[in-house]
Each structure stands twice: as structure tokens, then as C-alpha cells.
């Protein structure tokens, strides 16, 4: 599948934004993070900014962005429509929580309720994003039990590492948050390795034989219907060389998982402000690594239509 930058950025940014929003909503709402004006302001601006930038970026993928409002109508059948509804609906409790926690300096009571609802909205929205991909049968690498948990785990992971960087930046860091961010990063690493392992051994039942209805033997494409690449090949016929894929997987592992894990482990022993700088570096490296991961998620996914063009 063609890795369109608008969609790669959209899923990575909103994942991190919703992860951070969920953590702030829960930890701030229930008073685990003190209601500090500047910490709250920067944290909520970062979370909502990532979400808004991602959503705006996703409209760049549309042929007719001026009609985007129509996408809220088909939530009964479409995961994309559900994503649209959930993402906009989450802004309401998030705004209420932001007003209560940041501007009024409150936690507990209705602020906790709003924070809880914002966290629930974040989880639901990331779930709908994951299901858009997990529900697509023509793409075997996406239509697997690994896809939805991956979106949830990566949102939680990037959100946690961002939350840790935020708290460390304001000298509010805690060992619990640090360990949580480290464990989330290791969980993300494990899940990605398991997914790659699964995809590399995938035996796809759909073949050129079932695609053409020609039973038995081999079916070899000898002539395309057109001489140049058409929409189908540009959009769904994207191919990546095996050595490039292997190299990008190593870059993903280094940036998204290994470097942040090492930095977070070191943070425990560092005095402020070095701990803050290391925590922020971990977050930046991880987000860069997740952009590579998401690019690969598209680039390595193979659509059944490529079978018609002799691209196994």
C-alpha cells in the first residue's frame, strides 16, 4: 500500500495525542498529577495539538476535503465514519477537563468525570482507527489480530513517553511514571516484533488462481491492460525491496524502542535538568521511530489487486 505521508503522520500524531490525553485525563482528573497551570496548559496543548494536527493532516488525503463533514453520517456501518464521530466527540469532555484542571486548578468531582470520559473517548477513537485497517480483508497484513492491539499499544506507549517527558520537564517526574513509560516501550517493541514475525510467515489463501478463477497449475501475468502505472498500482501496488524493509525495521527498532528504553532507564539516575532533557529526547526519538514504523505498516502491506498484475 502506498504510504501517503498525510495518513502516516495522521495515525502517528493522533495516536500519541490520544495516548497523552488519556493519561492526563486519568492522572490529572483523579489528582495523581498536581493541578499546575503551566504543566497542564503545555500538556493539554500538546495532546490536543497533536490530535488536531493529525486530523487536519488526514483531510489532506481527501479528494474533496470541503465535503469532509459528510463523513460523520455513516457510523452504523463505517469505521472511518465512527472514527470521525469519536474524534470530534472526544473534544467535548477533553475541553471540559482542560477548563477544570488547567484553568480552575481542580481535580476530582466533575473534573475527574470529564477526565475519565476524555480517556474513554481517546481509547474509543484509537480503536476505531485500528479497526479501519483491521477490517480490510484484501490486505492480509492488516486484517489480523495484531492490528487493533498495535494501534492501542502504540498510542499508550507514545502517550506515556510524552507524559513522562512533560512531568520531567516540570520537575514533577515520578519513578512510577518512568517505569510505566519504560514498560510501555518494551511492550510496544515486543508487539512489533511479534507482528513482523507473524506477517513474515503469513500464508495468504488468495492467489492468482482464486483471483482469476483458473483452478490448478500456475497463473502468470503476460500482459497488463495498460502500459503505465494506473491508480490501482500507484495506490495499492507499492513495493519495497526486502533489504530496504530490513533496514527500516532496524531503524524503527532503534528509534522507537531501543533508544527511548535506554534513555528512560538512564533518566532514573540523572539529576534535573539532565533527566528532563533525556526524557524529551526519548519522546522525540520515539515519535520519529513511530513515523518510520507507520510508513512500513503501509509499505509492507500487500493488496490482493496486485495479484492481477503478477505481483505476488
Amino acid at each position, binding site marked *: 500500500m502506498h504510504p501517503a505521508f498525510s495518513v502516516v503522520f495522521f495515525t502517528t500524531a493522533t495516536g500519541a495525542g490520544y495516548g497523552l490525553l488519556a493519561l492526563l485525563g486519568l492522572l490529572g482528573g483523579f489528582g495523581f498529577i498536581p493541578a499546575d497551570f503551566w504543566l497542564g496548559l503545555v500538556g493539554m496543548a500538546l495532546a490536543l495539538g497533536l490530535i488536531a494536527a493529525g486530523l487536519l493532516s488526514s483531510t489532506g488525503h481527501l479528494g474533496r476535503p470541503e465535503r469532509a463533514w459528510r463523513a460523520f453520517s455513516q457510523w452504523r456501518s463505517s469505521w472511518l465514519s465512527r472514527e470521525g464521530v469519536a474524534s470530534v466527540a472526544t473534544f467535548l469532555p477533553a475541553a471540559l477537563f482542560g477548563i477544570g484542571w488547567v484553568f480552575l486548578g481542580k481535580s476530582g468531582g466533575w473534573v475527574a468525570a470529564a477526565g475519565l470520559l476524555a480517556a474513554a473517548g481517546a481509547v474509543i477513537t484509537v480503536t476505531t482507527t485500528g479497526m479501519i485497517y483491521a477490517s480490510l480483508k484484501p490486505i492480509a497484513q492488516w486484517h489480523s489480530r495484531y492490528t487493533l492491539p498495535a494501534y492501542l499499544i502504540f498510542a499508550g506507549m507514545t502517550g506515556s513517553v510524552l507524559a513522562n517527558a512533560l512531568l520531567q520537564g516540570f520537575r514533577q517526574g515520578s519513578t512510577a511514571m518512568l517505569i510505566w513509560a519504560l514498560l510501555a516501550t518494551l511492550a510496544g517493541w515486543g508487539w512489533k516484533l511479534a507482528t513482523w514475525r507473524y506477517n513474515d510467515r503469513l500464508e495468504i489463501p488468495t492467489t492468482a488462481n482464486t483471483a*482469476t478463477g483458473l483452478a490448478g497449475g500456475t497463473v502468470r501475468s503476460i500482459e497488463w491492460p495498460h502500459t503505465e*502505472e494506473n*491508480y490501482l498500482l500507484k495506490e495499492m501496488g507499492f513495493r519495497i525491496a526486502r533489504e530496504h524493509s530490513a533496514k527500516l525495521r532496524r531503524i524503527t527498532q532503534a528509534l522507537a524502542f531501543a533508544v527511548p528504553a535506554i534513555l528512560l532507564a538512564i533518566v532514573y539516575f540523572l539529576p534535573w535538568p539532565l533527566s528532563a532533557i533525556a526524557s524529551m529526547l526519548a519522546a522525540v526519538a520515539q515519535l520519529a521511530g513511530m513515523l518510520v514504523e507507520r510508513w512500513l505498516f503501509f509499505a509492507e502491506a500487500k493488496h490482493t489487486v496486485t495479484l492481477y498484475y503478477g505481483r505476488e
Partner: protein
Amino acid sequence: MTCLPVQTDKKLGLVIDLDTCVGCQACVTACKEWNTGGHMAPLTDIDPYGGHVDGVWFNRVHSYEHTTELGGRTVNFPRSCLHCEQPACVTVCPTGASYKRASDGIVLVDEDKCIGCKLCSWACPYGAREFDTDVGVMKKCTLCVDRIYNDNLAEDDRVPACVAACPTSARHFGDLGDPASAISQLVEERGGVALMPELGYKPTNIYLPPRARSQRAAKVDAPALEPIEAEGGFLGWIDRMLSN
């Protein structure tokens, strides 16, 4: 509404005979000609005379070499929308632009509602939908809705343009939901198959596999030529000398 009808009154669709298709591309050009002025018009071409020709087509003919233990053969394979009973292209649509008609099962796109998110083309395993980069919306085969119900056309012409154009009658149109229809009988008789049945889209269009090889093939070998006698005389001697 992008929820699917529980059932449709008719299942209009095509049956394509892979045995008789000669890959002449007549259906492709007839489709393009009709539809670029039809329901989903225009079928935009990008850089049509340049080095990177691209454009929207509803029907594409591939050619394959199918090799089995009995030998190999060339199979021409027209590919277009199969008007599935379970079209995921419709259910994934966030705007309601894609829909399946309850009356005849035809899958259509309302171009005025399409936002061009392209998700329907990802959801279609058959590559039936093509994005028009110029208009910014998704386009697809309409089964020539503007021909098959068109009272202005002679009754014989009320079939999709691709069916009307086929010189070898490899394309058939009709109601596949009615077991008594000629097209359903043809599928029954020839053992028609659905494409990618394992994905569960239940395509309406059916393909007829090439017929089995005949054991009564025509004898084409000519009688053996008589041996040529060596030329005698002086010229024969020169010929033999020069041939050495």
C-alpha cells in the same frame, strides 16, 4: 445509507466467458466511450498523449498464461466491478456516497457525496474502483444503469456497453438471482466460478472457466514430402562441388 440491503429483488450482473474472450479490448473501449458521457462522466484521462498516460477505466482486460500438467494456454481476463452481494466498498464508505441498490443489486457511487477518501478502493479486493484525480471522487462501473433501463434505446441495446460490443459473445448480462434466467442456466451448464470466494464478498458477476481441451482435435499434419532426387548432369556436378 451504507448498510447493505438484506436482499435485492434482482441480482443484475455479468457472466464472462474466459473460453471465448479473445482479448480484443472492444469491451474496454466501448465502456470508456459510453461512460465518459454517462452516469459517472467524465472518465478523465491524465496526460493522454504524454509519457505517463493515466486515466479512469471501469473495465480492464488482462492476459495470463495458465499452465497445468495438461499444458499451457493463454487466457484473456476482463476485470470490472462484480457488484458483490457483500460489498465492503459500500459499508466502509463514511459519507453514504457508495450504495447498493435494493431493486437490482447494482453498486453505485453518488459523486456529489463522495469526499475522495479512497477507502472503498482499499476495501475492494478486485480493483474495481478507480479514483478520478481531476474531479477528486471515486468512480466505478455502473453496469450501464443509463443503458439497461433506457427507453430511448432499442430493446436489443438495453444491455451494458461492454456486452453490446463483444464480438465473440464472451460477455452476458442478466439476472443472476433468478435460477431460470438464461444467464443463470449458462452458469449452471458451464460450471461458472466466483472470484476470490475465500474473502466472502459473494460477487454477483461469474466467470466461465475455459472449456476442457478437446480430444478430437482436427488433424492438421500434411503428407510427408517426397525425397528430392539428386540433380544429374553438369549443373548437378557444379552444385555438388559448391555444396562441399
